[in-house]
């Protein structure tokens, strides 16, 4: 009887820990309808893949989401530049800032999210699903 009680205790502890930790799963800010500063757009198709390098003053900055990381993790731009994230992973990612300045929809493989830089600042962003995935954009006037 003692052995059976121990087994039931082991099983119950697994359920309890799993259930308790899952209660944190939806505690992240999920109000993604707020008006972000930069002008965002999300598409479900990849951007046109031009192999021609843009001129120095060009306004397109590309960030790839691959292997659970933003690449490059840090970039610099100027006001008016367009930044586009493209998810090349087979798992869902997104792009968020803690103040909801950036708040993309969930990006499946091939989906993109774009913003236009409007203020000189440093934008620290992350994936809300995998919060160790982080990057930053330094915006110059």
């Amino acid at each position, binding site marked *: *009887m003692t*052995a*059976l009680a121990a*087994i*039931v205790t*082991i*099983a119950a*502890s*697994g*359920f309890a*820990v*799993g*259930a*308790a*930790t*899952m209660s*944190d*799963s*939806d505690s*992240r800010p999920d109000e993604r309808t707020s008006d972000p500063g930069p002008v965002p757009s999300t598409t479900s198709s990849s951007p046109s893949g031009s192999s021609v390098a843009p001129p120095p003053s060009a306004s397109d900055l590309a960030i790839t989401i*691959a*292997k*659970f*990381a933003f690449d490059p993790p840090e970039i610099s731009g100027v006001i008016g530049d367009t930044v586009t994230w493209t998810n090349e*992973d*087979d*798992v*869902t990612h997104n792009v968020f800032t803690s103040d909801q300045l950036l708040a993309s929809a969930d990006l499946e493989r091939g989906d993109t999210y774009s913003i236009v830089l409007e203020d000189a600042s440093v934008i620290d962003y992350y994936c*809300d*699903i*995998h*919060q*160790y995935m982080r990057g930053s954009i330094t915006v110059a006037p």
Partner: protein
Amino acid sequence: MNRPTVLRAAVAIGSLVIGVVHLRLYLDAYRDVPIENLGRSFVLNAIAATFAAVIVLVVASRWAILVPLIVANATLVAFGLSRTDRGILGFTEQGWRPTPDAAVAVLAEIVTAVLCVMALASRHTKNSD
């Protein structure tokens, strides 16, 4: 087939589902997670779950049922930890992602654990008679 045999077979199937889901996740994406040993933990889970499925079918001892019970519960705890701010091995993930793999795995883990307890209780009752 008698009830204990059916339960053991069901436990084996549940364990295999746990292992297959984790192996698939590893091959599809999680081997690329830039956190040391995170990807390997998925492979380890798949190996342990497969081992548990074989053990529960091959070894008649009641203690053999503890193997899938421990694997199922450990996997469930690991999933729960990955949903906390601290994460597991530094890895965090939110919600029931990836879809539907996370839900399938958790369901398999709970069902397997319950079946293990039922199998052990059944044997315990039989031994007490």
